[in-house]
């Protein structure tokens, strides 16, 4: 199962990519994707507590199960306005 991962602001700087493709197991949650990424990019770990996440541009909890082709986004604390 393949998903697109979108990364913003400092998360994008850390990973060096605004968009990544990742293979995940069926039944995987957003949290599983996050832990996989945090394994690749240890600097991400400090965002564990302040992070928000989304599926297909809607806020979603880390325990939400994802589907094939979903767009997963990880959002550091926002600073718009």
């Amino acid at each position, binding site marked *: 199962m393949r998903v697109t991962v*979108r990364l*913003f*602001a*400092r998360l*994008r*700087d850390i990973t060096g990519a605004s968009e990544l493709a990742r293979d995940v197991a069926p039944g995987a949650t957003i949290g599983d994707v996050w832990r996989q990424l945090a394994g690749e990019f240890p600097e991400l770990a400090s965002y564990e507590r*302040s992070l*928000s996440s*989304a599926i297909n*541009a*809607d*806020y979603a909890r880390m325990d939400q199960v994802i589907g094939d082709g979903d767009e997963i*986004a990880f*959002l*550091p*604390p*926002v*600073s*718009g*306005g």
Partner: protein
Amino acid sequence: MTPPLLAIGRDPLALDGIAAAVAASTGTDASTSSGQAPDGRDGAVVTFLGLVRNHNLGRSVRYLEYEAYEPMALKAFERIASEIGARWPSARLALHHRIGKLLVGEASIAIATRSPHRGDAYAACRYAIERVKQIAPIWKHEFFDGGEVWIEGATANPDDQQARAEAERIACA
């Protein structure tokens, strides 16, 4: 052509544009637009512009770069319009956010509200900016004399009722 009520993009923002957008809106909730002329129901228009400041936390700011998850930011704006429609049913909202590189003095956000009475227009306008800062997936990258830093606020889940209540408390005198 009337500007859209809710928008995010790279074009400079103008007060007249946001005011024209909200003036053209009609209906009973802030998220509805029909392009019709205003009907004389409203007695108050309040606008807010957020400008890039030359100082932030003791740093001399050279410029900002705003980044957004655009489709999700638009959804956040729609949610804010809907919240305003629920809390201030007679108020209408227009909200434009700029992204990309912004120089000192340029506007990053323009908000306009209209309503029959001024209290609602002031409150809805203030509520909108507080909620944008809480829930819109937009980030500022600050370039200052001597370095750069991503500004990180305190994201609230849009369903966080405590954050929403705090925005409402600030908005309502």
